[in-house]
């Protein structure tokens, strides 16, 4: 079952190469729907009371090097897998209603990206994780570079240059992570049999000195991916270059792989270093919240508003994880799903706005709600969810995160709260700028607005439906993640920073 889930998208993509061009889009939609169906089936069959891995699969892959092909689902990755499946359906369906050149290759790459992302979430072998984590970049490299937008006219980069920048940034982290992963396995084997199994490595443990540098190698990879403040240099160019269907899934899911990596790998494998560097990571997280929020309300390009808001949101999620308390991490997982579900529709809406106004500048938009009330209503729901309106699932997520943070690091929590306030500002600014305030300068010109079409509604309404459903019942996620999260966080709470050890002497 878990194998089918992982490889179904790629299989559909490869088979699609043998179909006529026109069938490529619908076929890809079918592929993503089948994957979604399997994912839903697995969520339904998931034993919510257990903290153990379920649907496990494990065979030796490269026995000489100690690498296993092992997969599994637990509370940490269950809903991220589901999120992946949902957003890919959205992204591919959105693309299928539009014309893309070389469609067969395009959909092959989209589906390949889905397999790679699912692989990163499902992998229970450290090296397999690194492999999928790196491999995710390959399809996106081609999608962004070959189907992206050149921005040389606006003083930006060409699509291929922007993508290259993204690849180099993200691989800087990933390659160091490869070295760190291998070092983890060899150092903790200590001359014995080398294994990369995450569970076995947890039991073996690692010396404190090694944990320190290995922690930063992993953190670098994950923080670049998110992206966190100071490591976000690739983000504006890549977001402006990306074709929108790819960006929907990219911003919705890929950033979460980084945050997920902290929970899956860093906390359980390097508990001492995690405690030691907790405040350093929290500082980076808070800087991301502040910087992302400020940038989100000064940017005028709608893609970048959404992009920088993601930086802020991911900062929030990281802060939740590094509260190192169960409620913080619970909230972080919930918030990962929430953020994926709001950022994807935002990019779909951005695409629709751009199609109607011909510009990505928020100053050129406005007044669209008059002609397109349904679109405006959908947008409003998404915007309110983004700003974590009480009653929304995002509110619950942020509440959990802040709750965890308050109990652990109260100063950090106060700064983080400002992020909540600022998110209200940029979410409403985006909504109002696009939908209401018609700029005076353009008052006389005809309004280039029309209602959302049935086809696009097919993409947008289900996504918004997910937001609403989750707002009504966030327990769906929380009760399934809680057991695993408690187990993970317990690892860290048992660990001690060297200072405290000194203090007891």
């Amino acid at each position, binding site marked *: 079952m878990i194998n089918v889930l992982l490889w179904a998208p790629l299989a559909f993509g490869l088979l699609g190469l043998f179909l006529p061009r026109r069938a490529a889009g619908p076929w890809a939609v079918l592929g993503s729907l089948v994957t979604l169906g399997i994912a839903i089936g697995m969520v339904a069959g998931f034993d919510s009371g257990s903290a153990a891995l379920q649907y496990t699969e494990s065979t030796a892959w490269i026995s000489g090097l100690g690498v296993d092909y092992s997969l599994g689902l637990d509370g940490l990755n269950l809903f991220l897998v589901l999120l992946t499946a949902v957003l890919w359906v959205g992204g591919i369906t959105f693309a299928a209603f539009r014309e893309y050149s070389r469609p067969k290759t395009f959909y092959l790459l989209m589906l390949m990206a889905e397999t790679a992302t699912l692989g990163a979430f499902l992998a229970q072998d450290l090296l397999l994780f690194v492999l999928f984590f790196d491999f995710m970049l*390959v399809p996106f490299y081609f999608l962004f570079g070959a189907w992206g937008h050149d921005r040389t006219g606006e003083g930006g980069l060409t699509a291929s240059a922007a993508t*290259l920048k993204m690849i180099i940034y993200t691989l800087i982290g990933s390659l160091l992570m490869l070295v760190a992963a291998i070092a983890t396995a*060899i150092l903790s084997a200590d001359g014995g049999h080398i294994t990369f199994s995450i569970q076995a490595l947890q039991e073996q443990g690692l010396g404190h000195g090694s944990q320190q540098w290995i922690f930063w190698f992993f953190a670098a990879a994950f923080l670049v991916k998110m992206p966190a403040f100071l490591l976000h240099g690739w983000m504006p160019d890549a977001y402006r270059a990306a074709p929108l269907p790819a960006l929907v899934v990219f911003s919705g899911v890929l950033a979460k792989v980084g945050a997920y990596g902290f929970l899956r790998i860093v906390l359980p494998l390097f508990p001492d270093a995690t405690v030691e560097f907790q405040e350093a990571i929290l500082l980076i997280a808070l800087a991301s919240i502040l910087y992302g929020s400020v940038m989100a309300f000064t940017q005028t390009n709608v893609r970048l508003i959404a992009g920088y808001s993601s930086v802020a949101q991911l900062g929030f999620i990281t802060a939740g994880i590094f509260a190192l308390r169960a409620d913080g991490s619970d909230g972080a997982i919930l918030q990962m799903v929430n953020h994926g579900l709001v950022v994807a529709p935002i990019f779909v809406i951005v695409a629709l706005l751009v199609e109607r106004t011909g510009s990505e500048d928020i100053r050129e938009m406005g007044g669209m709600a008059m002609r397109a009330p349904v679109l405006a209503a959908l947008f409003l729901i998404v915007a309110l969810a983004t700003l974590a309106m009480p009653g929304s699932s995002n509110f619950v997520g942020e509440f959990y995160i802040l709750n965890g943070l308050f109990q652990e690091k109260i100063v950090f929590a106060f700064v983080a709260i400002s992020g909540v306030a600022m998110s209200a500002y940029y979410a409403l600014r985006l909504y109002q700028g696009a939908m209401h305030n018609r700029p005076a300068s353009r008052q006389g010109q005809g309004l280039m607005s029309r209602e959302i079409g049935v086809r696009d509604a097919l993409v947008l309404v289900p996504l918004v439906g997910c937001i609403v459903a989750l707002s009504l019942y966030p327990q769906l996620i929380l009760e399934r993640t809680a057991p695993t999260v408690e187990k993970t966080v317990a690892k860290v709470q048992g660990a001690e920073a060297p200072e405290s050890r000194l203090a007891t002497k």
Partner: protein
Amino acid sequence: MNFNEPHIDYAGISPLIALTVGLCVVLLSAVFKPFRRSAPLLTLVTLGAAAGLLIWQWNDPKSLITGALRLDDLAISISLIAILTAAFCVLLSLRERATEEAGSGEYHALLLGSVLGMVLLAASANLVTFFVALETLSIPLYILCATNLRREGSLESGLKYLIVGSIGSATLLYGMAFLYGGTGATNFAGIADGIARNGLDGDPLILIGIAMAAVGLAFKTSIAPFHQWTPDVYQGAPTPITSFMAVATKAAAFAVFLRFFDVALGSQLDSWQPALAALAAISIVVGNVGAIGQDSLKRLLGYSGVAQAGYMLGGVVVASESGTSSLVFYLAAYAFMNLAAFSVIVARERETVFGDDIRAVRGLGAERPALAWPLTISMLALAGLPATAGFIGKLYLIEALVEGDYTWLAVFIAVGTMISLAYYLRVVAAMWMRPERETIPGGTPAIAGAAPEADPVDPEAGRRWYLVGPAVFAAAATVFFGVIPQPLVEFASHAGAALF
């Protein structure tokens, strides 16, 4: 009078006999008119026979010719890589201008001579065979580089390689003299004994010998700072020969690097290990930085080869079984990755007027997917991205390095790989991401810069089976061993077990 007939293990030397006989037959075939066109086929048959005989000897290590040669799995695996590369070279040389100008028989005979040298070198366990094999390998290559008689670049390349190669050989020979002087032995095991017996641990005589031998081998494997010839010679030589040089020479030279340093000089580990590690690090930096901004694909692969040699040297540095295995694995992966790229370059060289300039592959994705995919896979694999043999190779090497306490060199490999993305992905971007090619100049190549080929354009070269076939095969192997690496890992671990 008693005459002791020496025992000769004919089974053991059968691959050498096959290659020698084949060489003579190919050379003579040029003389007889009815066989004039059959040199490529005869060469392939010879290579196939030699490969078959080598595989027959697999897993049956033995010393040959009173210990001058040692045919173990390391020697066999490296020889097989060399033979595979030579077979690719034969296919890529079909209808190559250089082949016709030099005479097909002579060209292929020289190629076989070089392969013979490689097989000898990979098995050599004695200073004399070591040097003789190295020259047998090199001298035909000097000539082959210059076979494109009407191109100045080709002649220059041959001459440059000859001069630099001779300096390398001379340095090596001088180093050997020191080692022989100190230990009184020529075979590798004897040298190790001699060092221990004569109390030469850390003796300046031995150290000078080691240093000079290392420099000589560094010339052959194009390790920086002894790499300066590499880009020029690669660019000037006929492209099929470049591919052969890039892959097979490197493999054979690394085999002897391993055997010489790990067997003969194993006791002097502390003196040469840091030095070789430093050379590896320098190579990684110099190669990767040098490749950035190269417009000629052959030069680009030349510099990339310098960097890759730096990665591979790591396998020698750690002097362990896993180091040796990882090096052999990497060499095999490197062979597939490079051969895919060179096959595409040969095809585009004949098809367009741009020679090996990066413009020759612009828009290839839309125009010739059967060529674009292999080159793409090759570039991604060289950059070490997952799902390719290149990734597994790096994983293997890094694992060996971390195990051998050379984690800093592993970090160097990671950093080098990051830099390398800048130029590997530039090639990929040219194929898939630029707008379609602006114009194809009709007749005269009005371009300056890299390799203005005067070769007649064969507009169908991109469809020829003997060019597309090797490209697709090598790329498929690169992906196959990236997804199912186990067979190649076992192959390599046999080779590693041969030395330790």
